[in-house]
């Protein structure tokens, strides 16, 4: 067997296992194999690892795929045969999703007119599938800008309050034999804050999670610098899956990625994991963090309180969206919710489209309106 055959076949196996393997990674792998040989399992393993794994989350799937692949190669099987089998399995599931999405789009056509009015106040929990699709279309109009922050990057400016741009001034002076006739200025530019959205996918959130997921998709597609995660019994980063432009594909990929859909609730633990792995290390620093959750946590509420405090110390703003808040007489009695509230900048409802619009406004607007929303 040649290095090329092995590399191509293993690339296909990895794709079947859900990794992104661009062609140049396969080419690199061939070159790596030329350097280390194809007989020593350890050498081949690390060569493949170096060439084809690009993020730590993929290592587990890679290890499994490699073990299977190597065992069967050692048993003398044709590498292409191994690849065929795995790939065909993945292709089947793709077809099923395709059928599903075409049906859904048929339904939504009849709903176009004045949907905004009828849907805007309706509780997401009572939505039908077609209404959900329509709501998604409306959500795409939402804009999530948020207050910008000062960037360190200096940009050309006409303002005289700025600092002198020596480079430009001198450059333009060459046209006048070194006489700086016109001074040029530059000032710090502004840049968008990162928006981090955390979605609780536990059982109690089920009626809302599907609408919120579409809300997150709208945010991801409509704005730069957005990160998306789900919390349940574990933490899953879904930024990559959800950022596909086509909403149906994005949602299908995301639900494949999230293993703990409608499962138990350990928000505190998940938030700890988020803080450790992502948030406090940089992702949430100076960011606007939006938590979509009803605050029911089966874990220790102290953990959630501590972790929310940690998060609020690094984040620019923390917005908690609770779909139950609209219920008459609602008080944050869920122990987790009560523990988290002191560390939340804005506490808003999120049961309907209208409420989501208000969230977009809260994200967008820093000023006085926020205080009104907290106790509205």
């Amino acid at each position, binding site marked *: 067997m040649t290095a090329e055959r092995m590399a191509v076949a293993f690339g296909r196996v990895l794709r079947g296992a859900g990794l992104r393997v661009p062609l140049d990674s396969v080419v690199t792998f061939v070159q790596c194999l030329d350097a280390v040989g194809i007989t020593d399992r350890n050498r081949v393993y690390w060569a493949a690892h*170096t*060439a084809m794994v690009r993020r730590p989350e993929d290592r587990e799937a890679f290890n499994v795929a490699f073990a299977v692949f190597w065992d069967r190669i050692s048993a003398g099987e044709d590498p292409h045969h191994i690849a065929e089998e795995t790939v065909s399995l993945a292709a089947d599931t793709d077809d099923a999703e395709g059928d599903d999405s075409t049906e859904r789009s048929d339904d939504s056509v009849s709903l176009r007119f004045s949907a905004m009015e009828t849907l805007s106040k309706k509780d997401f929990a009572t939505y039908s599938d077609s209404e959900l699709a329509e709501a998604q279309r409306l959500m795409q109009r939402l804009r999530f800008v948020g207050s910008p922050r000062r960037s360190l990057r200096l940009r050309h400016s006409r303002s005289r309050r700025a600092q002198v741009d020596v480079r430009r001034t001198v450059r333009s*002076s060459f046209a006048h*034999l070194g006489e700086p006739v016109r001074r040029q200025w530059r000032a710090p530019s502004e840049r968008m804050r990162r928006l981090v959205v955390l979605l609780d996918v536990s059982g109690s959130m089920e009626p809302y999670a599907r609408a919120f997921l579409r809300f997150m998709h709208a945010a991801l597609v409509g704005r730069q610098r957005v990160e998306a995660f789900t919390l349940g019994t574990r933490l899953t980063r879904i*930024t990559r899956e959800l950022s596909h432009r086509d909403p149906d594909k994005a949602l299908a990929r995301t639900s494949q990625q999230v293993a703990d859909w409608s499962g138990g609730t350990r928000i505190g633990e998940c938030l700890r994991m988020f803080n450790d792995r992502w948030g406090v290390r940089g992702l949430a620093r100076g960011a606007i963090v939006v938590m979509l959750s009803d605050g029911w946590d089966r874990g220790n509420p102290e953990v959630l309180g501590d972790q929310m405090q940690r998060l609020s110390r690094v984040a620019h703003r923390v917005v908690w969206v609770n779909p139950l808040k609209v219920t008459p007489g609602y008080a944050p009695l869920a122990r987790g919710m009560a523990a988290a509230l002191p560390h939340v900048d804005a506490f808003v409802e999120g049961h309907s489209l209208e409420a989501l619009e208000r969230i977009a406004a809260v994200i967008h607007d820093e000023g006085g309106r926020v205080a009104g929303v907290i106790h509205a």
Partner: protein
Amino acid sequence: MVAPRASLGSVQHVREALQGAGYLADEGLATAVFLALSLKRPLLLEGEAGVGKTELAKVLATVRGSELIRLQCYEGIDASQAVYDWDYSRQLLHLRAAEASGEAAGKATEKLENELYDERFLIRRALLRAIEPRNGVAPVLLIDEIDRADDEFEAYLLEVLSDFQITVPEVGTFRATEVPLVVLTSNRTRDVHDALKRRCLYHWVEHPGFEREVDIVRLRVPQVHERLARQVAGAVERLRSLHLYKPPGVAETIDWATALGTLGVTQLDEAVVRSTLGTVLKYREDHERVTEHGFADLIKHAFERGALNG
């Protein structure tokens, strides 16, 4: 200095050469370095803070006997800080001097202008220096914490790392005669763009296991007795299992061992750990957590680990 190249001809050689310079690499990392060298591709290292990503680049420079050029990334970094800039004040002076001596009037404007963009007014920043090194030996280029730079800069870097050439419009194109060894590091505060990742070989650097950490301490802090080295590694192992905000990295382990060595400590006890814990843990909450957990258990674990064949 170690003779370059000759000693890096296989994975095993790379491993030995790194060890000779004070860096213990596991098989995965040694393979990644060997492949980066033989394929002449950049190596992207990701991992927790303090696992020795930056250190690797420094050691590689020593091993190859070449210069280390470090580009620390930060938000807002741009070409004039990373690639090249013109020395404007000197250009201006040159112009004035020409004017004063009356040369300017005699010379054609075009000629004077050409003089202004002479290479002597060019300030070479890290990337240009890496591509066109002074002494002709391909250097090690360390692009540190690439995740801190903006996306725009990443796109520029992609171009440089693909062709290893830089064009300065006024002067011409600089092309690397020998491709430098490029090491990029990232702490994963955001994802590096896929296109850049595709250019690079990738390795995720892990915290070392117990035995390797002992070896690292003994290699880096030779004045510390083996028993103490094992106890320190054991205590750090336990600390990492306590869900701290910032679990100690290898750098902290080495700091701790050095501190203990300086104090003349021969084995851990509660008072010593209490007074030196600041070298390992940098958060007040982490100190509280360890106090809550109890020093006795920490020391017990350290002693159990320290006793093994020690």
